[in-house]
């Protein structure tokens, strides 16, 4: 909402300057987003008289002027055809910034003749389109004075953000009313502002226009008055100046009146050219598929929920949102119908949303205009038309009635303290509410003014009181604090997340945050998304991710494109599945796992075992029982079938998937290999049982452990893990550790077999092992291995 200080002062009798007004606006909840003064840049430009004009010796189209800008004659070279002796215009000297061409003037020489500045056109000063010549001011304009000040351009412009609840402040008058309540001045009577004796209807003798409402839901009230014999010329200078100051283009008297009243009073109007109407003008629901060309030149297709204003022939107005092109007024209009209606806010909002059509009228109607202002609005509009376009008014037609029933709120002034936290005496609260237009009875039954549709409960009144009293007076009250040291608040899931995140970072991975949505193609490479946006911002951000890998892989590729050779990223976020959003930590290595190094001389590309190491490392840090994890099948379709795996406590308790990505997955994501990744399903990690802080009793073994090596020949496709587990189970008391130190195929190992070298750690308990005991354990190991098809290598 834009307005100038002088416009505000039409309604508000105040001595406050722009800064004071801005401070007060922000203080009472009308946030000033910007305050500017168009005169600031123009202030140095002075009114100047051309004393003499002579042809330029070197150029036909130029003249050499002698100009007086208040400090004696200056030589100026000028190319304007209207430059002549005696002309009074606007002069800019060296050092001044000219906003139109965006240049700073300097002393210059034009074709050998010195020039001390320029005489300006309106367009050069961004004051209009006119560039046919330099500005011609009246003869008596005071030479030497600042043009901007003389022309009344020194008028600060406010841009105020109006929150959706404050329809009343969608007009300058409402803002003035709020400021007056805040003590910044006195609100002038509205009739005085419009130079009217009273706001009584200006009813003529002619028959009232034939209007009615057939849709009392969408348009409960349709007031109208006709004026015949009007002349629709240009609007007066004062109105044009105001509209231009806030960035609106004056169009014609009748159009400008509707725009002016809408901004000045928050009261949208519509004016029809009666010559273009056929029969009665009716507010009714549109027919499905009915079309109208609106004033913005676009065609809108309507449906049966939308309220329109139509005559016998066509729709002329998308009710309360935008008028139709066909019946709009033009220079030749002589008879008009002025519409002042009340549209239901919800209807307007829905229609506006469906048509994706915003307008000044919609913004006001959907917030809810003052339902008690229809007669006043019509009187003011008619007065302006009669004053500036002439003509004869008709009688007034009032079809329907706006919902003006007064709301009364039972209010307890103690609420300002118990809800608002501020102490404001009851009589002071009453005064504040009354200044805002509320009627307050002795027992604090508060009647809400018709223009404050947003107020419907005691809390709203608390807000009114404290915003006018000033939130700067709100004291700080400490929240009651629980006794003792603050208790921990993290849930088990949150603890897992925090540990997993920090473990991944500690292991050398940089945490990324990538989009939750992917393209359909990327999602398809991961089995397809389960949730697709119906209004995506782009095709790339359309499907909720079923995996974190695409986002990370694409980020990794961008890094590799920039020349990174080893990209290690992780992300902790959700996968969006049909039934749930699953918290997942995914690590990804693209390119080298280890960079070039003088010790080895070459880099090592990432492989599936790097991914396995990360999966186990993060799982261990997150508190998962990694010693009980088993390898359960390969990763699935997005993974390399022979170089991926799942880690779990059983087929239905998968905690992680790791490995090399399938070449087809890389291709679908358009990334280069090698790319390995590990997905860690944080929500699948079993929560630790809460057994208190005390650890299980423990005494380190007193006797020395014994180490024995074994080499077994096994089938080449046997998973080493199976043999290790078999040996671990051979003597659960004595065998405390089994580790694989060698995997070998080749010379000495039969075809189809491999040799596995294992070290077994044996821990004696009450007495040391003797030879017989060691032999017995070794036999158990060999026979357990034999069950996996392993034979001891000779």
């Amino acid at each position, binding site marked *: 909402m834009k307005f100038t200080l002088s416009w505000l002062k039409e309604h508000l009798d105040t001595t406050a300057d722009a800064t004071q007004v801005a401070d007060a606006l922000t203080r009472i*909840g009308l*946030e000033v987003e910007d305050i500017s003064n168009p005169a600031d840049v123009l202030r140095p430009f002075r009114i100047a008289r051309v004393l003499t004009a002579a042809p330029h010796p070197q150029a036909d189209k130029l003249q050499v002027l002698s100009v007086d800008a208040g400090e004696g004659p200056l030589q100026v070279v000028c190319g304007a055809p209207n430059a002549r002796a005696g002309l009074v215009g606007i002069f800019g000297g060296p050092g001044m910034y000219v906003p139109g061409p965006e240049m700073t003037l300097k002393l210059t020489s034009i074709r050998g003749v010195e020039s001390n500045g320029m005489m300006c056109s309106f367009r050069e000063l961004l004051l209009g389109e006119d560039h046919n010549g330099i500005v011609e001011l009246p003869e008596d304009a005071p030479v030497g004075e600042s043009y901007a000040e003389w022309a009344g351009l020194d008028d600060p412009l406010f841009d105020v953000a109006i929150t*959706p609840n*404050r329809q009343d402040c969608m007009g300058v008058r409402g803002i003035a009313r709020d400021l007056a309540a805040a003590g910044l001045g006195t609100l002038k009577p509205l009739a005085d502002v419009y130079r009217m004796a009273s706001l009584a209807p200006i009813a003529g003798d002619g028959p009232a226009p034939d209007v009615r409402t057939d849709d009392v839901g969408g348009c409960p009230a349709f007031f109208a008055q006709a004026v015949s014999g009007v002349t629709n010329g240009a609007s007066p200078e004062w109105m044009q100046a105001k509209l231009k100051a806030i960035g609106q283009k004056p169009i014609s008297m009748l159009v400008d009146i509707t725009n002016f009243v809408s901004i000045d009073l928050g009261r949208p109007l519509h004016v029809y050219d009666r010559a273009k109407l056929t029969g009665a003008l009716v507010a009714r629901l549109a027919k499905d598929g009915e079309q109208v060309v609106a004033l913005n030149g676009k065609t809108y297709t309507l449906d049966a929920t939308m309220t329109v204003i139509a005559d016998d022939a066509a729709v002329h107005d998308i009710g309360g949102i935008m008028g139709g092109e066909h019946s709009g007024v033009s220079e030749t209009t002589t008879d008009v119908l002025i519409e002042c209606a009340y549209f239901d806010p*919800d209807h307007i*909002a*829905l229609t506006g*949303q469906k048509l994706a059509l915003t307008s000044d009228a919609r913004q006001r109607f*959907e917030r809810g205009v003052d339902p008690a202002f229809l007669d006043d609005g019509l009187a003011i509009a008619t007065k302006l038309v009669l004053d500036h376009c002439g003509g004869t008014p008709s009688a007034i037609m009032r079809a329907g009635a706006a919902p003006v029933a007064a709301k009364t709120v039972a209010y307890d002034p103690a609420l300002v303290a*118990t*809800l*608002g*936290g501020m102490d404001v005496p009851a009589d002071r609260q009453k005064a504040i509410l009354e200044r805002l237009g509320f009627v307050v009875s002795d027992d604090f039954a508060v009647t809400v003014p018709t223009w404050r549709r947003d107020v419907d*409960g005691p*809390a709203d009144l*608390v*807000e009114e009181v*404290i*915003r006018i009293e000033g939130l*700067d007076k*709100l*004291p*700080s*009250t*400490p*929240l009651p604090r629980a006794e003792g040291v*603050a*208790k*921990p*608040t*993290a*849930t088990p899931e*949150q603890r897992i997340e925090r540990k997993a995140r*920090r*473990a991944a*970072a*500690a*292991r*050398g991975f*940089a*945490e990324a*945050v*990538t*989009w939750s949505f992917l393209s359909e193609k990327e999602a398809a490479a991961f089995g397809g998304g389960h*949730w697709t*946006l*119906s209004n995506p*911002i782009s095709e790339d*951000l359309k499907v909720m991710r079923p995996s974190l890998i695409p986002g990370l892989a694409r*980020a*990794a590729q*961008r*890094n590799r494109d920039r020349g*990174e050779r080893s990209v290690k*990223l992780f992300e902790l976020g*959700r996968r*969006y599945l049909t039934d749930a*959003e699953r918290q997942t930590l995914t690590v990804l290595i693209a390119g080298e796992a280890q*960079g070039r190094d*003088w010790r080895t001389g070459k880099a090592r590309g990432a492989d599936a075992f790097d991914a396995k190491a990360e999966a186990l490392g993060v799982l261990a840090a997150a508190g998962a029982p990694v010693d009980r994890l088993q390898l359960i099948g390969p990763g699935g379709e997005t993974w390399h079938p022979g170089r991926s795996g799942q880690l779990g406590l059983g087929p239905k308790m998968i905690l992680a998937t790791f490995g090399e990505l399938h070449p087809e997955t890389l291709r679908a994501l358009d990334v280069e290999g090698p790319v390995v990744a590990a997905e860690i399903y944080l929500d699948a990690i079993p929560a630790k049982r809460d057994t208190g802080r005390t650890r299980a009793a423990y005494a380190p073994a007193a006797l020395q452990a014994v180490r024995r090596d074994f080499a077994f020949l096994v089938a080449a496709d046997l998973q080493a893990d199976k043999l290790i587990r078999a040996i671990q189970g051979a003597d659960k008391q004595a065998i405390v550790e089994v580790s694989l130190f060698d995997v070998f195929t080749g010379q000495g190992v039969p075809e189809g077999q491999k040799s596995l070298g294992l070290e077994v750690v044996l821990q004696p308990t009450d007495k040391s092992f003797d030879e017989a005991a060691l032999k017995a354990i070794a036999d158990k190991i060999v026979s357990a291995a034999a069950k996996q098809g392993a034979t001891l290598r000779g």
Partner: protein
Amino acid sequence: MTTDIDQLRQELLSAVEGAADLAALEAVRVTALGKQGAVTGLLKTLGALSPEERQTTGPRIHSLREAVTEALATRKGALDRAALDARLASETLDMSLPIGGLATGSVHPVSQVMEELAEIFADLGFAVATGPEIEDDWHNFTALNIPETHPARAMHDTFYFDEVDGEGRQMLLRTHTSPVQIRTMVSQKPPIRIIAPGRTYRSDSDATHTPMFHQVEGLVIDRGITMGHLKWTLETFVKAFFERDDIVLRLRPSYFPFTEPSMEVDVGYTRDKSGRRMIGGTEPDGWMEILGSGMVHRKVIEACDLDPTEWQGFAFGCGIDRLAMLKYGIDDLRAFFDGDLRWLRHYGFAALDVPTLAQGVGA
């Protein structure tokens, strides 16, 4: 005899001293202490001496043996050390050789700030609550007193799905973290103190807006909570978060459908020498809006089946990305979601920079 012993001592000690290597030293040892050695020979003469002579000569011969033995050991130690020094001197490596990359992992600023918030608010008794990002329109709008026709719905630029849930509610991506307020009040009996950080979505994309961003919601529901508590909580939080006590807040009346009264909160900034805005300073050069807040609307409390005459409280919401940018001097929001390693290394945090009250909540 006296002269002989003294002379022998002189000769032997000087021979030990003069032994250039272990072999020469062994030769000296054999000469002195071997079976045929000079000292051994003197010891053998002791038996033939008279008791009186043995009284005087015996100790001198033993002393000679001890002196020679000790000199041999000392010299051997010196020769061993010299040999070790020589070997080590030949083993020198270039200790300036680089040892390769240190682990350069990092924690994203958004995660770091979320943990900072959790830490600060834990001290004030607030737990961390979460909720789904794929929401229904009842939790995201209706229960928050934003009916279908409310202009605020249009302002939210919502992403929708075609799906409706079992109760016919339109599914959408949550536009704010406020639905977690509803889920918490529905599932948990007051008193309630929670913050709810998380991802949020709006159909908006330009230099300062991304379609996905992060918010944190705060909610207190209890008996006798007023706006004064809200102000204190926000002041306490902002000072703790920015780690400065000289922060000034400006409260402005505002409007949110789910709070009444509502206010927006600006934080004062001062400019440093280079013109960068720094949060804080008792005499601010300007104001930056950082959060919206207010007393929970009674319709919201009623929507959660709580009695608004018994329970009231406040809520606030704040952009986490913006908090991170303001605290850590990050300029470009879009870079948050690009995964550029250079950016992540520069603005990220070390794994062990865990925010704690004892260490400080900033890093």
